[in-house]
């Protein structure tokens, strides 16, 4: 609780007002917000912050008056001080006053609030558009008109640490629950319009530093916009209860200068199809900023290594064109390799529903232990994973090799002993 003690000391020393302003030197973003809204990095977020503080101080002022009167009365009008109560019980004048005054105060708050709201609703004249789709439990970002699209899921470190009884101390995980495999990247100084929708249930997209939050509703498109003033990485998360892993679908958005953004976009467009194996760390450029990703770059010495070692997060990243990665096809993997790789793919893609133990979550998510599908013909299972079934989403966006790996994994784990293995070619044929 040392933070708390530091915070309380700060409160005592500088007073509430001082400490609210204390972060003026560093950018006031959610990362160093301790007990107040961050000022954020957009004009709108500043306006919102000011409105918030105005409303707060209005409430404090009213509180001082109201509670002042109350405690004075409690003190001065107790029986030992004032044995004979007064008898008045009515006064039209004061009643009118204390109806009108709050009303005026409220108008004072409502007018600027309406102004800000109107600005927030004005999504016209955007420089670019990103379509965001919520899934249980990940986000998909599509750069409209750019043919760039990818998924963004909880990063693997957090994901391991967050398992019940994982034994990993979250404090040792950088940006615990606030990090993803693939960042949403946007340019600074441009008006970016977001179109929000969802695939299964309602989700909510919130990044406090941008002061934007909207619900992602299946079947409908909601709009919002932002224009970020400062380059940087801003974090948020899903805000509408969307099922078991609602707490585990963070949002990370990186604002880059215009040129960096253009480079990123070009790499993103060309990257996946052109040179997949050569630089697995290059495709998800934003990840380079993360210490967690450095080891990947270091490990990527040979093509095979890269394939086997590649974090599942990248597997998901490189899905865009859905072209089977040649490297994967070129390196036939042993069953053991497939199982090892499949476990990683499983953790990222399947575990949310079917659980780490494979036992699933009755009644919606069936157990894979001894499942008839798993024990049955391998092609049928591959097809189900590719195409989905009812509440199970299709996974055609995964690479052939990953699907082969995860299918092999499920058939040979959790006590399942089917013994066979799938190959990437087999998957490619069944697509």
């Amino acid at each position, binding site marked *: 609780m040392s933070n708390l003690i530091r915070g309380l000391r700060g409160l005592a020393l500088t007073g509430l007002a001082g400490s609210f302003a204390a972060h003026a030197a560093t950018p006031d973003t959610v990362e160093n917000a301790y007990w107040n809204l961050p000022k954020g990095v957009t004009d709108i977020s500043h306006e919102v912050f000011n409105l918030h503080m105005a409303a707060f101080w209005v409430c404090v002022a009213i509180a001082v008056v109201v509670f002042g009167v109350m405690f004075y009365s409690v003190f001065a009008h107790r029986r030992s001080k004032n044995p004979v109560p007064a008898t008045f019980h009515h006064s039209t004048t004061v009643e009118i006053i204390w109806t009108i005054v709050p009303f005026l105060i409220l108008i004072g708050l409502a007018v600027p609030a309406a102004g800000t709201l109107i600005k927030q609703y004005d999504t016209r004249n955007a420089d670019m558009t990103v379509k965001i789709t919520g899934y249980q439990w990940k986000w998909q970002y599509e750069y409209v008109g750019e043919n760039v699209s990818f998924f963004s899921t909880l990063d693997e470190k957090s994901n391991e640490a967050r398992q019940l009884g994982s034994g990993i101390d979250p404090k040792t995980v950088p940006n615990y629950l606030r990090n993803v495999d693939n960042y949403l990247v946007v340019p600074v100084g441009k008006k970016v319009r977001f*179109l929000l*929708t969802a695939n299964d249930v309602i989700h909510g997209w919130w990044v406090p530093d941008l002061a934007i939050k909207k619900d992602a509703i299946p*079947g*409908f*498109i909601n709009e919002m916009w932002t224009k970020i003033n400062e380059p940087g990485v801003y974090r948020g998360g899903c805000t509408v209860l969307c099922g078991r892993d609602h707490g585990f679908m963070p949002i990370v958005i990186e604002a880059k200068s215009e040129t960096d953004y253009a480079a990123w976009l070009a790499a993103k467009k060309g990257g996946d199809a052109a040179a997949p194996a050569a630089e697995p760390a290059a495709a998800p450029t934003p990840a380079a900023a993360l210490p967690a990703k450095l080891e990947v770059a270091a490990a990527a010495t040979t093509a095979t290594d890269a394939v086997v070692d590649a974090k599942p997060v990248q597997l998901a990243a490189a899905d865009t064109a859905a072209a089977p990665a040649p490297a994967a096809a070129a390196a036939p993997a042993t069953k053991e390799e497939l199982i090892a790789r499949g476990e990683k793919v499983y953790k990222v893609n399947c575990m949310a529903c079917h659980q780490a133990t494979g036992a699933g979550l009755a009644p919606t998510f069936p157990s894979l232990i001894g499942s008839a599908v798993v024990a049955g013909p391998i092609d049928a299972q591959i097809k189900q994973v590719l195409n989905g079934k009812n509440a199970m989403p299709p996974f055609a966006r995964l690479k052939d090799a990953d699907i082969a790996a995860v299918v092999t994994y499920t058939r040979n784990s959790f006590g399942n002993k089917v013994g066979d293995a799938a190959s990437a070619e087999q998957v490619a044929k069944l697509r």
Partner: protein
Amino acid sequence: MATHAAESHSDNRRYFVPDPSVWPFLLTIALGTILYSVSMYLEERHPGPIPFVIGGALFFYIVFTWFRGVALESESGKYSAQVDRTYRMGMSWFIFSEVMFFGAFFGALYYARELSVPWLSGEGSRVLTNEFLWPAFENVWPTNGPAGIGGEFKTISPWHLPLINTLLLLTSSITITFAHHALKEGHRLATILWMWATIALGCVFLYFQVTEYIEAYHELNLTLGSGIYGSTFFMLTGFHGMHVTLGTIMMIAVTGRLMSGHFKPDSHFGFEGVAWYWHFVDVVWLGLFIFVYIL
């Protein structure tokens, strides 16, 4: 002095407080059993029909006994004018709560027609919803939505059976009013006849509605699953039909009481309550006829 009045419940100065009763508790058991077995059935955990049947039988038995008990208390003169007012107010507020229940479904209809369907078709501020998710969907009513859930369907013309049904219900409102006047004037036989006429009209209404449903399902492919149109259509008319059924049963009960000599020209709340209910059902139908069938 009050002490003596304690023994006599017929004293009109005293409000009637019933003796302890086990009916409500049993009614709750019945209700709980029914709902629990339906839940299990819906979740495909087939509990078998037995709990449902037992619960249902108990339910009807208690409702019958309870109402009969109230009728007997009333006939034996235990109720004062104040108790009568209680029933009137109680019934009015009950009907009001029913109005709010229908309000939820009419609200859904309004929302679908004025907001969600136009939005899906790109009107108002939701152009992009249409462009990105449901291109080519147009705002027409009736609709089963952009995905055409339930397949193509035809609707029921308001000017055939529904119009007849409207006339039937309007007539029945008149006949029940005649019955009421007859009762007030002490013409018991006329009252009973008018009541039977009303009941008959109610039954014919129900018969036509069932015919209409059969036609909808078999010939028009209009089902509960026909998107938002089918949903609102069947839920509104279906709940209304259930209320007509209930109203008809209540009228039969009241007529039975009339035939066994219950009610007086100046005191017959049981009768009036049913009449109010019937009028309420009638008014809801008018709403349905206009908003569901015609518009």
